[in-house]
């Protein structure tokens, strides 16, 4: 059943993106930054998938948690095995809508985005303000927003509770090109 569901979902996404109104990137950049008195922690992911439907303003972003690269191997290990539990929850997904996408013509746009963020098996409605612009063939969406770790039921052991911020900053930059 799960196999069938995955196959149908994949085919559905592929068929949906086959349109001149769809813009896509498979190399989207997403990073998060945690600042605490003990240490700063940063991780970057350059393999984000993002699809925008310019006809409806719908946007879907998917990230593989194991694609986040940390400076320190131990931090990466703890992130995947203890906090995010990447084996059980391998992806983060944002599904939403750019509310004012119809105002994007040739000028830059302050994009107002609303949607649901799925991380670690939990979901949370979020609002993001980003920058959106057209650069020749590209549709670029960038910005940042804050996420509360507790909203996603991520348990931080007491021994390192002071090492990790309760609120982390998430930054993103997606260079979409028309899907052909």
């Amino acid at each position, binding site marked *: 059943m799960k196999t069938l569901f995955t196959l149908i979902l*994949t085919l559905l*996404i592929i068929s949906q993106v086959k349109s001149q109104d769809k813009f896509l990137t498979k190399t989207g950049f997403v990073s998060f930054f945690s600042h605490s008195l003990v240490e700063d922690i940063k991780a970057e992911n350059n393999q984000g998938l993002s699809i925008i439907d310019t006809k409806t303003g719908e946007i879907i972003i*998917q990230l*593989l948690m194991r694609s986040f690269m940390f400076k320190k191997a*131990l931090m990466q290990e703890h992130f995947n095995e203890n906090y995010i539990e990447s*084996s059980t929850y391998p992806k983060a997904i944002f599904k939403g809508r750019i509310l004012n996408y119809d105002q994007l013509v040739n000028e830059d746009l302050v994009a107002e985005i609303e949607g649901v963020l799925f991380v670690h098996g939990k979901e949370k409605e979020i609002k993001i303000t980003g920058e959106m612009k057209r650069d020749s063939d590209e549709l670029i969406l960038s910005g940042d927003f804050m996420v509360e770790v507790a909203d996603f039921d991520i348990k931080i052991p007491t021994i390192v509770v002071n090492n990790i911020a309760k609120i982390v900053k998430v930054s993103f930059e997606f260079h979409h090109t028309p899907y052909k």
Partner: protein
Amino acid sequence: MKSSYLKIIIGSFLIIIAFIFGINQYNKPHVDVRDSKVNYVFTPKKLVDEYLQNEMATTKKYADQILQIEGDSYSISTLKGNSIITFKDATSESSVICHLQPEENNKILKLKKGQYITVKGICTGYLLDVVMVECVLIDPEI
């Protein structure tokens, strides 16, 4: 008196050992893909097919494992100065996208699109494609 000194010395010694172990763990290096043993060898089609059959089970099996991919390259591109080799079978919409280490940039210049290439790297999972990071070229002729 003698036994208290002994306890202090043993205690201090254990603290120093624990401290050194902690520092080593904190600073331990990332997996060196080039020197690591390959866990599984695939053609791009075989790996993609397995993901399409059961994504969750395949993710559990191969995520964070070192995979070797052998096949004709579909495209060679760059992202922020690093190279990306994509393997794609004509019968599938999905591909295997390999993000290479910066050290591989010089070798990439010698490669051509469509060339048979062997790459190994760390599999991170599947979105619309299988994603591999920290990849290195292992073609003996390069």
